[in-house]
């Protein structure tokens, strides 16, 4: 069964830039609050800590971001923005129970788009796709209509969740709405491409990906599409592009995750893939990193270890197709079934 799962990416840069713009009628920077005032020096440090945490999240330095955000909380505890940073960091590090608690605190302090979006993602991670859709609908409804980029982001995520449910037409409506709101929104374009592919319109999907020049993910998607169409030469050209671009991305993202998965899926550089997957796992234990390591172990013949690791990848009850496919293959391997 073909399913599509998208995940995504950082708008922390947006938040950073937004902090640079003074908000007029809503009282300036939203830096949170405390029952009693703090001296000016602490307030300055608090703002600096928040900004630092945002930057660290953007740079995928999740452990550092968590520490910085927690340090900010030693000064003030009821800033829902910082609870959002903590939620994000915990999700990426794979501490889901703590992430759920942090997200609940965030939404209790201030139920609005940014907190609803986190609720949605956590529900999705825990296999509750319908709940994820409902929460993201709330996020879309509550989104700032003047923040076109943010609104486009929420609509795109809603489209992604709808696509996860197999609701292609509804998903495409959201991607189109996102693109109407913010022209050429990168994630919305990708979503639209995947929706077109899911609808069987490979030609349209290819056309969209071709517009995304310089995108590693678009190159990978094109490679897969050309493979499906039987054009191995064109596919390999795109795969080469992907590898080149993704090697650069990996440095920025501090993760070889996508390159690892590509190598594993195409049976390339298997030992190197395993070494890098282990390194990624040392830094973070989210279910997708666990899945990559499980797959790497499996492809390198270490079946028992792969079985243990895939169980870890399934610990939240995710319905992610890739993870569940891997689990099926790993757990049905003759080496295990003989045991």
């Amino acid at each position, binding site marked *: 069964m073909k399913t599509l799962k998208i*995940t*995504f*990416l*950082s*708008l922390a840069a*947006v938040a950073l*830039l937004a902090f640079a713009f*003074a908000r*007029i*009628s809503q*009282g*300036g920077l*939203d*830096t*949170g*609050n405390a029952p*009693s*005032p703090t001296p000016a020096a602490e307030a300055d440090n608090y703002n600096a800590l928040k900004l630092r945490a945002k930057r660290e*999240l953007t740079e*995928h330095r999740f452990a550092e971001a968590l520490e910085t955000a927690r340090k900010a909380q030693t000064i003030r505890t009821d800033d*829902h923005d910082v609870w959002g*940073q903590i939620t994000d960091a915990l999700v990426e590090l794979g501490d889901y129970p703590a992430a759920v608690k942090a997200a*609940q605190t965030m939404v*209790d302090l*201030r*139920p*609005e*788009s*940014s907190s*609803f979006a986190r*609720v949605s993602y956590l*529900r999705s991670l825990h296999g509750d796709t319908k*709940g994820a859709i*409902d*929460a993201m609908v709330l996020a879309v*409804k*509550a989104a700032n*209509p*003047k*923040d076109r*980029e943010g609104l486009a*982001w929420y609509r795109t995520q809603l489209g992604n969740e709808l696509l996860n449910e197999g609701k292609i037409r509804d998903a495409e409506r959201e991607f189109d709405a996102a693109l109407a709101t913010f022209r*050429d929104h990168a994630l919305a374009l990708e979503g639209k491409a995947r929706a077109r592919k899911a609808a069987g319109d490979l030609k349209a999907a290819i056309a969209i990906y071709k517009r*995304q020049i310089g995108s*590693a*993910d678009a190159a990978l*998607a094109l490679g897969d599409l050309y*493979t499906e169409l039987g054009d191995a030469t064109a596919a390999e050209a795109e795969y080469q592009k992907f590898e080149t671009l993704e090697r650069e*991305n990996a440095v920025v*993202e501090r*993760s070889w995750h*996508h390159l690892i*998965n*590509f190598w594993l899926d195409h049976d390339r550089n298997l030992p190197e893939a395993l070494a890098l997957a282990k390194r990624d796992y040392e830094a973070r234990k*989210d279910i*997708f990193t666990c*899945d990559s390591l499980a797959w790497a172990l499996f492809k390198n013949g270490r079946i028992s270890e792969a079985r243990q690791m895939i169980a870890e990848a399934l610990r939240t009850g995710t319905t992610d197709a*890739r993870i569940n*496919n891997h689990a099926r*293959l790993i757990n049905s391997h003759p080496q295990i079934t003989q045991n």
Partner: protein
Amino acid sequence: MRNALAGRIVFSFLLIALILTLTLSPNIPNSSASSHREAPLITADPLADNTDTYVFRSTESGRSGFVTIIANWIPFQEPSGGPHFYKFDDTVLYEIYIDNTGDGVEDVIYQFRFKTKFKNGNSILGMAAPNQALKGTGSLEPLITSLNDPDYNEPQTYTVTRIDPHTGKAGVVIAKDLLTPPNNIGERTTPNYETALAQKAVYSLPNGGKVFAGQRDEGFYIDVGGVFDTLKLKSIGAIDGVDSTAGFNVNTIAIEVPIKELTRSGAVPAGPTAPDAVIGVWSVTSRQKISVLRQSIFEEPLTLGPSQQVSRLGSPLVNELVIPLNLKDAFNRSRPADGSQFAQFVTNPQLAVLLSAAYGINVPPAPRNDLVAIFATGIPVNSVTGPNFTTFLSDGKPHEMLRLNVAIPPSASPSRLGLLGGDFAGFPNGRRVFDDVVDIALRAVAGGTPFTPATNISPNNTIGDGVANNDVPFLTRFPYLGTPQSGNSTLGSPHDHHTINALPALP
């Protein structure tokens, strides 16, 4: 608001950090999964953030027995905000609270809940869509000629509930299924906007009052650039500031109710110093909490929990100019009953220090009991304003609310400077749509009022932002705020708000 440069920077960053997962075959999906998904942490929530609250004795002819309360949301609306334009949020609870006992706790509540209908969900357009033309049953122009027009594609209806918390009951629905007018989109889409659409959205209530909810012109006039450029006001005393809100619209809820529905006695007060003459008003917005994870598989996915107050607003400019940055969220979540925690910012306001530094003027020393009276307790009967003026409503503790003495009639010669202009019917006795609250607040904080005689001298009592009127005329009838700016104006450059001039200064 992000500018174009910021958008390009962010877009590039997005491309770098982009992650995609594809599943192409039933066997071995060959793409990567999640890396880092981080939703926006920008917390502007204009759909729920209050911008202004007004309360005044109605001045429309024949309406002297009524009080009008207006509350605004969704500021700085660019009129050409298509395709969906600006609507209230269906998931938000909008409320107006009234305290008539002085303890900072609401005694009367008016609740407003909205619901959007989508007539043609397949339209690529939003609020307005040529549904009839597409069916061959109507023309493109004029498009929307009534509130029930089939081409008004996304109308909102709303319900008004009045609650008396003391009864412990859920409240009485005093109006339901009322329609909001569409935004003022343009001459082709919403022609004759004021008469054909906006006025038709003014409904009568069973108590003889009126209600309206929808887009209006932004009536709050202020030189934001000057004020927030560290008080680089265009001038002190002269009229050459730039109205930064000119050309923008806002969403308004307006309700007019009989005086007796608001007072603690349930009657019309005998006079301005009667114990039931003063009420305190503030507007509140709340959103419902939700559970992160469902508790059981049988639980509805969208289990909405208790409401969380996310915004409140009584007197103008308190959250902007008095409450420090790090406490603004706390203020928004708080109630007037909890006002003591913010008292120090009124008794010793930073703004006074800034005005002194900016202009080298002497300001009254702390504690500023004069400001406490204006913003937190109301002004008691005193020798300055005489025996027939008071806005005092307090149990002895500070409660920030917009206070109105309902027994003081509208002024025959209103002054935009309200009390400071000798007009007892103006701010800080309530707030009318045309009151120049910026100049009044600046002068009050600078000590340029009769309540602080030592500093009631120039320039303290002439300071201002140089903007003395709105850019669009106010109405002389309910809902008093002007016709919203057209989304497709033919008058000059509709998008260059700085070329829009204010009307002649109000007296």
